[in-house]
């Protein structure tokens, strides 16, 4: 209950700690206080019970003789003397009333003689009084009864039956106020309450201090983790290690972790830079190689044609070769510029454009026994960069058709998942061997004899340019699955 409330209020740990400590201290202090007060009350009460009987006995000693002598005056005098406050006794108890009644309940002496005249039956004022009168006239041994509640009206009544030679002469009733007891108990209760409150205040202050000390490094670590999450590793200031305890060790290991993370990030950035340089080098080398190879043949042809300018036959033989070589160079350069090209074509359209690809792929199959499964489930209202998407899907499907053996299956599936467009190309070809997987998207990496090694590289660059993700799952002998996830630009209503 308590903790769920705290949780509901979204209190910080330091406040919770302080509250918990305060609650515990308050609970202990008030429990002990209550026990003390109750025990005090009982002790005072027991003392008072003894006292009222003691007072009554002081009169009961001489009362029987006075009753026998009809000496009502000395009976009254002894009651009055008993009721007189003992001077100088700070614990004095107030005698509310006292009386001697005969066995029939008539007044033999009463401290309030005006209200209760001599030798007339005592008339009880209320039910409580009637109950006490009944108890008094039937008492056969000293008895103490209480009444009147706890406050100013509270009292204890001691009753002593008076005997002479085993004959019942009457009963002596002495009633003392428990107000002083109440005041005393209230005073001690207030004192205990005050002490408890003091303890609670001290405890809560202590709680605040302790929780501050406990929570401070935690707050620092949390702040550090927040910075780490946001990637601002350089912003992570070291958490001060104040103590040699669990929290201190936590702070220390957090600091170590933060330092290591920062170093790692730096290293990664360096690696990324060098990888960029490396791939740039690879591209340059590839371009050089791919362009250089035909160039050497082309220059050779041109050289030969220059040497024999009159030879028409030579010209006719070499011109197609020259054209083919230049076309190849043009293709390579165009492929390399794919990104520039798509930058120009940022037109968006529906996904029916994908249907246009079906014919191209079927032409690619070119009568081979390959089963093409086509499931285009996309809503035409979804907007995508159609040219890029077409290129991506086409490249993937061409690859699939090329690797699938006779009787194999190529599957294209497209669907929407939330705000994303999913494009899936499956084949049950031979799969990609593990050693090739890391180079899969590198430019000029190819396993095909006539491949340029730029197909998947283009796919990768296009997906990246559309802020999408491409995933590959492949198992040797089972097949390969490419899954492209693209954010849908817009759904037109």
């Amino acid at each position, binding site marked *: 209950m308590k903790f769920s409330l705290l949780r509901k209020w979204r209190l910080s740990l330091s406040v919770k700690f302080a509250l918990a400590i305060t609650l515990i201290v308050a609970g202990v202090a008030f429990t002990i206080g209550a026990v003390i007060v109750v025990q005090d009350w009982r002790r005072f009460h027991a003392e008072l019970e003894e006292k009222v009987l003691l007072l009554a006995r002081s009169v009961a000693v001489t009362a029987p003789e006075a009753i026998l002598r009809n000496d*009502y*005056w000395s009976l*009254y*005098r002894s009651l009055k003397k008993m009721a007189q406050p003992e001077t100088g006794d700070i614990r004095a108890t107030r005698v509310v009333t006292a009386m001697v009644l005969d066995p029939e309940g008539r007044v033999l*002496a009463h401290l309030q003689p005006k209200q209760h005249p*001599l030798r007339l039956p005592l008339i009880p004022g209320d039910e409580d009084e009637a109950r006490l009168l009944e108890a008094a006239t039937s008492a056969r041994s000293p008895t103490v009864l209480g009444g009147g509640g706890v406050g100013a009206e509270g009292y204890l009544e001691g009753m002593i039956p008076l005997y002479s030679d085993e004959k019942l002469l009457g009963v002596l009733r002495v009633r003392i106020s428990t107000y002083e007891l109440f005041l005393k108990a209230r005073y001690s209760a207030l004192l205990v309450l005050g002490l408890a409150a003091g303890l609670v205040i001290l405890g809560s202050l202590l709680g605040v201090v302790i929780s501050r000390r406990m929570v401070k490094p935690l707050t620092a670590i949390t702040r550090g983790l927040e910075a780490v999450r946001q990637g601002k590793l350089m912003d992570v200031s070291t958490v001060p290690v104040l103590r040699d305890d669990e929290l201190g060790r936590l702070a220390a290991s957090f600091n170590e972790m933060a330092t290591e993370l920062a170093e790692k990030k730096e290293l990664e950035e360096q690696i990324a830079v060098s990888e960029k340089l490396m791939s740039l080098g690879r591209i340059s080398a590839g371009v050089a190689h791919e362009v250089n190879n035909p160039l050497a043949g082309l220059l050779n042809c041109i050289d030969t044609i220059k040497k024999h300018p009159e030879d028409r036959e030579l010209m006719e033989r070499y011109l197609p070769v020259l054209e083919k070589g230049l076309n190849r160079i043009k293709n390579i350069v165009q492929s390399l510029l794919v990104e520039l090209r798509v930058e120009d074509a940022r037109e968006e359209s529906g996904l029916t454009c994908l249907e246009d690809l079906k014919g191209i792929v079927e032409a690619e199959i070119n009568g081979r026994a390959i089963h093409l499964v086509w499931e285009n489930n996309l809503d035409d209202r979804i907007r995508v960069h159609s040219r890029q998407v077409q290129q991506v899907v086409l490249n993937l499907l061409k690859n699939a058709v090329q690797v699938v053996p006779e009787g194999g299956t190529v599957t294209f599936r497209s669907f929407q998942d939330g705000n994303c467009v999913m494009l899936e190309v499956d084949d049950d070809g031979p799969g990609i061997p593990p050693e090739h997987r890391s180079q899969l998207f590198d430019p000029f990496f190819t396993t095909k004899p006539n491949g340029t090694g730029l197909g998947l590289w283009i796919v990768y660059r296009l997906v990246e340019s559309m802020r999408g993700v491409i995933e590959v799952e492949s198992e040797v002998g089972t097949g390969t699955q490419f899954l492209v996830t693209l954010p849908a630009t817009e759904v037109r209503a």
Partner: protein
Amino acid sequence: MLRTAIAVLLVSLSIGVGRAETQTPIRFGLTAVIVQEHLRFLDRWALYLSNKMDRPVKFVRRKSYREVMDLLEAGRLDFAWICGFPFVQPRDPEFLELLAVPVYKGKPLYNSYIIVPKDSPYRTLDDLKGKVFAFSDPESNSGFLYPQFLLATRGTKPQNFFRQTFFTYNHAETVEAVADQVADGGAVDSYIWEYLQILRPEIAARTRVIKISPAFGFPPLVSSKRTEAKAVERMKSVLLGMSEEPEGRQFLAGFKLDAFGDFPPELFDGIGQMANDTRKALLWLASAEKRVPSETSRK
């Protein structure tokens, strides 16, 4: 210096011892006719009398007049301050002699007061019918004989007229009983009541006088016939001479008295007459009750 001090001490001791051995103390009985609670005042007066008598005077206190009278009869008291009612009782053989009578407000007389609580509605003795009444002493003139006489002249007696009566054996306590309303009425000595008005107004002022008796002879001081004549003579002159000298007047002022005077026993005839009348009336009442029990019981 030390030697002289020891010598003086020895001399004073020998005098003290000599006196104690050779002279038996004079035994002086006191009753509730005076306020006996002022012990230090009475001790000083005892010392004063001792000095005047050249013999130690010892006060003997008893609760009731009866006890003091018994001691006088038994010869165990030399002097006593008693009430007029016991004094007028017939004695055979006579063992008392009138010694002195206090003079109060210029006369050797006092009254009996019937008092009620100050805020009570009672105005006459008849209003107290069926109530609780406090007497002082069964042998007190003012505190018992006079109210008994009043009722006897009405043809009734205390136990029939009042619902309940009790004795306090002390005029001062009768005043207290009425003030506290333990009793609805009481009979007291006028001298004591007025004395208490000054000395204990917190009690006496809560009472009110509804009836004043005729004047009676003030409670007298008596001597036992067994006391040697010389001592009686000396005590008489000491008492009568108190008003003549400053120290004695101080004690008289403490008692609120003017003097101790020499008066004839006839001063108490009024009490004697009243006692006689009462006795006769009670006897008549007793015989009437025997004749017609139902009639008197109805009263």
